[in-house]
């Protein structure tokens, strides 16, 4: 019966992210129950709309049932989500790292320097290049999850992330390099805010990366290219590409979440 399927879908759409096997099991069980109600309601001679109304009345509000299921599977939902977010961050970091390594490799090849120079200071690269991902994803996570007092919570979440970045920075970085991750973090958050305002990622990424370029222009340490102007240009291009990559992964992640929620209906 189409009405039954619709009721089950309404529950499943609001269930959140649980394992596929759990979704299949819940949908199957609810469908079986609705089938039994229909059988029972058919006997007094009801037909069509009368049966559908009786089924809906006896079954209850799909929103309420979905909320109760979501509560019952709270731990599972959070575990899946946390693992997925961690995966997203790791993939984003690797994307940013690959971009910068490629840029550095091109510069090394152009300037006739050994290619291995691009791979030097891996610990420093980790702190430097994790900050754009953390900045962008932190801002996006805050928008997604905080419904009440969102600004305060967003500041709290991002303050935690920036402290994490600073802690890593002070462990790995030389004194002259320490402010770079914070600048990258803030620029990535800015890019996300601009994307939210304008809707287009390319201009948001390009404008968001400008403070990095300015920072390099004013003499940030950069050993690969000679001259502040070239260093600023390389940093600006690298950051813009990084923001685009992280935004693309985050978009794909949200599509995956949506597919996961709507799957197996």
């Amino acid at each position, binding site marked *: 019966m189409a009405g039954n399927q619709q009721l089950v879908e309404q529950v499943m759409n609001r269930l959140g992210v649980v394992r596929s096997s759990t979704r299949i099991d819940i949908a199957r069980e609810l469908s079986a129950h609705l089938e039994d109600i229909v059988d029972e309601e058919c006997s007094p001679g009801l037909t069509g709309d009368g049966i559908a109304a009786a089924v809906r009345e*006896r*079954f209850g509000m799909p929103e309420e*049932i979905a909320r109760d299921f979501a509560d*019952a599977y709270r731990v599972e939902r959070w575990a899946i989500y946390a693992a997925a977010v961690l995966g997203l961050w790791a993939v984003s970091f690797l994307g940013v790292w690959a971009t910068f390594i490629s840029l550095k490799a091109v510069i090394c090849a152009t300037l006739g320097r050994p290619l291995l120079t691009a791979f030097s200071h891996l610990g420093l690269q980790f702190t430097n290049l994790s900050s754009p991902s953390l900045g962008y994803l932190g801002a996006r996570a805050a928008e997604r999850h905080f419904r009440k007092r969102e600004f305060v919570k967003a500041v709290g979440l991002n303050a935690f992330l920036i402290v994490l970045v600073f802690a890593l920075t002070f462990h790995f970085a030389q004194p002259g390099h320490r402010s770079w991750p914070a600048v990258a973090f803030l620029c990535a958050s800015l890019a996300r805010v601009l994307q939210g305002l304008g809707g287009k990622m390319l201009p948001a990424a390009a404008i968001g990366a400008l403070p990095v370029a300015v920072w390099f222009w004013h003499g940030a340490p950069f050993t690969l290219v000679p001259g502040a102007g070239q260093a600023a240009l390389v940093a600006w291009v690298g950051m813009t590409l990084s923001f685009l990559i992280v935004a693309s992964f985050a978009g794909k992640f949200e599509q995956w979440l949506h597919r996961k929620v709507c799957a197996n209906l």
Partner: protein
Amino acid sequence: MSFDRELLKGSITLLVLKLLSEREMYGYQIIQEASRRSEDAFQFKEGTLYPALHLLESRGYLRSEWRVAKSGRERKYYALTSKGRKMAAKSRGEWKLFTKAVEAVLSNG
């Protein structure tokens, strides 16, 4: 007569554990049996039973299995685990004490 929704929701665990302590049942049977024994007083929204069953199963009080029912269709049967049996006994004891205490308050007005 129909009871307050929150009151029913609070006692659904006790009812489920008690009914399943007697025999294995699937969701629809649990509702039918509760309705029959209460002379239709327990008329809760039927879909709300399933999250409660899944929660009890995740806590280890129930186990479940898909089997073919008498109707020839597959249904998910629930049964108590040994942990569930202990919980059923405990819940019943608590309920008796609770109702006794409530009754004492109500009758000594």
